[in-house]
């Protein structure tokens, strides 16, 4: 299948393993190690799912975050990522609008949610090797936000979810603003680092 067909059928877009120079991953790892020392705690304990007007859903989470620096910026601005984002989603010109490191300590978690409505595609990968797969529910992709919230209100980690592999230094794109997804509490003894990059089409369209 083409990138576009896979996106339409499955809500995902794979990035070739060799798309990013190994040297850049090393720079990112070095940068992340520094950012970890100044990352901000993000601990939303408001229970349940909160439906937002842009179609997103926010929910409890605990981790530490940092928006990254020059190395992560270079990754976010890789032409290959923008090309894959555009081809998969059928958008004309994709720009990375949000990106950063998420530092997971043992026990850190993220309940089921839908990404910000501006995220046409969300790319993710592990900077460290021990991140378990993400959970997601592609079958709920085209339900309304309220329908999703009603269905999952009592289930932070929904039963019947599928696994979305978070690969080590190989990015995968997914339809995060539509497909509910989550991370169960990190069950390793090590701290783990997740990279996320969201793209949006910022081009001005004729009305």
């Amino acid at each position, binding site marked *: 299948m083409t990138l576009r067909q896979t996106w339409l059928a499955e809500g995902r877009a794979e990035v070739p393993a060799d798309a990013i120079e190994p040297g850049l991953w090393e720079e990112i790892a070095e940068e992340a190690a520094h950012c970890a*020392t*100044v*990352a*901000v*705690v*993000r*601990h*939303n*304990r*408001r*229970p349940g799912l*909160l439906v*937002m007007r*842009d179609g*997103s*859903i*926010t929910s409890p*989470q605990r981790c530490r*975050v*940092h*928006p*990254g620096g020059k190395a992560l*910026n270079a990754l*976010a*601005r890789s032409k290959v990522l923008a090309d894959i984002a555009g081809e998969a989603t059928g958008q004309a010109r994709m*720009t*990375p*609008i*949000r*990106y*950063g*490191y*998420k530092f997971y300590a043992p026990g850190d978690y*993220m309940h089921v*949610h*839908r*990404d*910000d409505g501006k*995220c046409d595609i*969300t790319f993710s990968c592990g900077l460290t090797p021990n991140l378990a797969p993400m959970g997601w529910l592609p079958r709920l992709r085209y339900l309304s936000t309220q329908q999703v919230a009603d269905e999952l209100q009592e289930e932070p980690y929904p039963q019947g979810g599928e696994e979305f592999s978070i690969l080590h230094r190989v990015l995968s794109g997914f339809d*995060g*603003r539509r497909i509910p997804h989550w991370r169960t509490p990190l069950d390793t003894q090590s701290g783990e680092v*997740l990279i*996320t990059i*969201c793209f949006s089409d*910022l*081009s001005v369209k004729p009305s």
Partner: protein
Amino acid sequence: MTTVEHTTPASVDPADFVTSLHEEGQLPQNAGGDPSVPDSAFPQHHVYEQPAAV
């Protein structure tokens, strides 16, 4: 009658603007795709710890 001069528009990459915001710390601190709801929206439910000075 006003004469309108046609000049070649400068090529602008919106990623430059995003990068500037990013470097100025103007992007949401949640760093993922999850909704950018400010922590201040849930003051009774958030623990918002400042990182220790390095």
